[in-house]
């Protein structure tokens, strides 16, 4: 039986960086993958959606480019070509991951991994079953879409993975669940002319965001993209015919050519036989893990979507994967990073980091907020993209930046500066004193910092007299 220092189960954004980091530290490493290298993120998550969204967004902008002085007649798109481009991008990146694993001397084993005992793992692949020894194991098996039993089985009802495999869009789309995935797909489809309706049981879509941020996104989705958003009521009596999915919300009938179910994700532990390693799953099927990614079994680590309390973000999984590998190889107990920015690729985009305004208030902090709207920013006006704002959430007492949110053009890129600021525990005045180049969207951060202190040159004066802080 071949034995490895570290065996990683799953080669997604948590698994493959864990394997490479362990190999970098000199360990002998195997990765077990039951499907495609790269996991959900690369094959049926972040990368394919963002590839399609890039095409969809450009089409939407072209279609609306008349105000910039461009007339293109009636712009058209070929969704099959979108899908082909997406497959190409995914294929290239997948080869990249496989190449990196190989170059780092990591053994890639194809099949389903399951614990025989704490240190022996069976790999059930196409060429039969083999057993390997593992001094340490890192579980990075990720998550999968939830498809509850009350929803009828039909090819017209899909979850995100199947939706990404479409080569033709339906004329109308009903989306169950107004979380990040539901809203991103809603914007993509609506930008390409699909009539979209979202049904969300909670009181609003994207409930994790501050109300002001949420309102910007919802307003744009409803007013500009003509998406019907129905909140605060469940979708009931779902039935399918040959060409339509029907249901009722609050007694009113809804109908579409296709339905996308995006009501959450469940941890993937099927076939893992994790009890043989001495690990007990929690009541929802997630693996309980400590801040250093260790589990209740001494040699077993877990990272990414499969662990309890996960943010279900690829970059969180990657940070945890690298930390778990370092801890597994060096026998340390370093904590994985907990400051995880969040990006939502809706129209407009959203980026958030640290505490939201609501969270900071809930925590009993004396909160100061500085907001600056893109409508007041030269570059945003020049680009013709004036929706949204950036805001700092700070401790009024110490001026410490507790969190930030950006909603609007390139918000997912803009949040990087704020992430650095929160991570480095900068104060708002330091952002204000950092000269930002003009004309850029990033200037909004500096302006918002000035707004927070009442010293903004490009905002209407406040009644309070200005006191320059150091």
């Amino acid at each position: 039986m071949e034995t490895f220092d570290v065996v990683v189960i799953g080669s997604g954004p948590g698994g493959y960086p864990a394997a490479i980091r362990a190999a970098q530290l000199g360990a002998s490493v195997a990765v077990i993958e039951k499907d495609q290298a790269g996991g959900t993120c690369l094959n049926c998550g972040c990368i394919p959606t963002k590839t399609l969204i890039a095409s969809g967004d450009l089409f939407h902008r072209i279609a609306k480019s008349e105000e910039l002085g461009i007339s293109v007649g009636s712009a058209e798109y070929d969704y099959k070509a979108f899908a082909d481009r997406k497959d190409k991008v995914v294929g290239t990146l997948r080869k990249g991951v496989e190449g990196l694993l190989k170059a780092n001397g990591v053994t890639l084993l194809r099949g389903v991994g399951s614990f025989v005992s704490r240190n022996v793992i069976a790999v059930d692949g196409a060429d039969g079953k083999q057993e390997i020894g593992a001094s340490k194991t890192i579980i990075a098996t990720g998550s999968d879409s939830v498809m509850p039993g009350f929803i009828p089985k039909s090819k017209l009802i899909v979850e995100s993975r199947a939706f990404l495999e479409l080569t033709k869009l339906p004329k109308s789309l009903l989306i169950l669940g107004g979380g990040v995935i539901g809203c991103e797909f809603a914007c993509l489809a609506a930008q390409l002319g699909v009539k979209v309706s979202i049904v969300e049981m909670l009181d609003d879509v994207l409930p994790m965001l501050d109300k002001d941020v949420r309102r910007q996104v919802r307003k744009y989705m409803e007013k500009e993209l003509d998406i019907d958003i129905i909140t605060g009521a469940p979708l009931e009596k779902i039935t399918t015919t040959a060409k339509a999915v029907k249901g009722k919300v609050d007694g009113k009938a809804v109908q579409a050519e296709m339905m996308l179910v995006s009501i959450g994700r469940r941890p993937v532990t099927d076939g893992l036989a994790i009890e043989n390693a001495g690990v007990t799953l929690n009541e929802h099927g997630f693996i309980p893990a400590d801040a250093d990614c260790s589990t209740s079994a001494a040699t077993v680590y877990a990272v990414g979507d499969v662990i309890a309390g996960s943010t279900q973000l690829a970059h969180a999984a990657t940070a945890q994967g690298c930390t778990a590998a370092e801890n597994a190889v060096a026998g340390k107990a370093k904590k994985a990073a907990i400051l995880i920015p969040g990006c939502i690729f809706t129209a407009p985009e959203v980026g958030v980091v640290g505490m939201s305004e609501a969270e900071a208030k809930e925590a009993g902090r004396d909160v100061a907020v500085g907001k600056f709207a893109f409508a007041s920013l030269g570059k945003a006006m020049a680009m013709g993209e004036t929706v949204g704002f950036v805001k700092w959430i700070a401790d009024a007492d110490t001026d410490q930046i507790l969190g930030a949110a950006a909603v609007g053009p390139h918000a997912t890129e803009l949040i990087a500066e704020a992430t650095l600021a929160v991570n480095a525990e900068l104060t708002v005045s330091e952002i204000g004193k950092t000269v930002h180049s003009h004309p850029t969207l990033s200037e909004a951060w500096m302006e918002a910092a000035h707004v927070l202190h009442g010293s903004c040159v490009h905002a209407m004066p406040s009644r309070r007299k200005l006191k320059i802080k150091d």
Partner: protein
Amino acid sequence: MAQPVLLPKLGQTVEEAAIVKWHKSVGDAVKQGDILFEIETDKAVLEAESFFDGFLLKIFVGEGETVPVSSVVAYIGEKGEKVPDAPPAPKVPVKVEPAPVKAAAVAEDKKAIAPVIKAAPVVSVSSPAQSAPVVAVAERVFISPRAKALTKAKCIDFKVIAGTGPNGRIVVKDVEAYLESSGYNQLRVSPAAKRLAAKHKVNLLTVRGTGVSERVMVHDVERSIAALPKKMSKMRQIIASRLTSSFRDIPHFYVTVSVDMTDLLIYRQELKEAGKAYKVTDFILESTILSLEEFPAMNSSTDGVNVSWNESVNLGLAIGLDSGLVVAAIRNSQELTLSELSAQVASVGAKARSGKLMPDEMTGSTFTVTNMGMLNVEDFGAIINPGEGGILAVASTIPTATVVDGKIAVRQIMKVTLSADHRIVDGTTGAAFINAIKNKLEDVELWKHLTS
């Protein structure tokens, strides 16, 4: 019209009290239910809530002042309303009436309503003695204004810097030399951590950094702030002073016995199934009351010269709250039946946990029982509540290998420890008393009799 605020009546035995802290200042808006001030008697610290909406117009009794109960301490009314310059004379003596427990302590003057008292109280009994704090006189350190500003900006303590100016005055050069020699210049500090340190006057050189490359982060400074000495709550201060005086002045001795609870627990289950639910505590308390009647020496107290045998058993019940420890007293407990006792124990427990015990209900206990049975402890010794002759500490009931009729059997064993005041009782009395409790708990026939 402006409403007078009275110092609340605190029960039958309390005639005066001190306001230790005002939560509102003159001019503040006050809502009904807002905490106005904190009162301290020699027994407890209580919070007084407002009965009125309006503005605090005048305060007559400042922090630290002691006045009789029902004195007018402040006025609440609309902004700009006229109020008297001096408080009206207090209407004392107060008629003896049951102390209001939950709300309305209505004084005789109908317009003057004393604030609702939210009791968040403490251990009962005598000596209020609290020594005045010793104030250390700091040695004067000479420092130039510029140098001082620099130490402030750098968040360091200038008192440790050696001055080279006239009269040992610290000048900027000295501070700069210190920053270099002390390693300050190598210190990496996050901007927010520095702000926080400056605000709380934390010396950054004493903070251990745990960020990347030992950078001092906000949570490091927070750790240092948490380590700074800070005032304990009034309640904890009272607990501290009372327990210290008890442990210092009373020579404690301890006697432990193992009680076999097996049979009683089986009988308790039978009672429960028959619809009569008792807590294990009820049986322990009843055994203690019966035994105290047999051993009046244990139900006594001394000042070191005189000893007083109490005529009734006022059983103290130690109740742990988040804010501290409270002893609730059950007066004349020897007159209660087991079911009456059980009901009273449940009632004072609930009151204590909701902060509604009145000072009266926390005074006058003659012997206390403290039960940590639910906290998984094998045994422990307790400190005597001042003014009492002893305290019984009850530990958890644990299945234990025990010799029964020459054979090893698993029995439910509970250890109880008596702490006794050696000035009043000796080992023989202590041993006999605690065995009396043990024998009662192990005598199921007694419980059948008491529950029939």
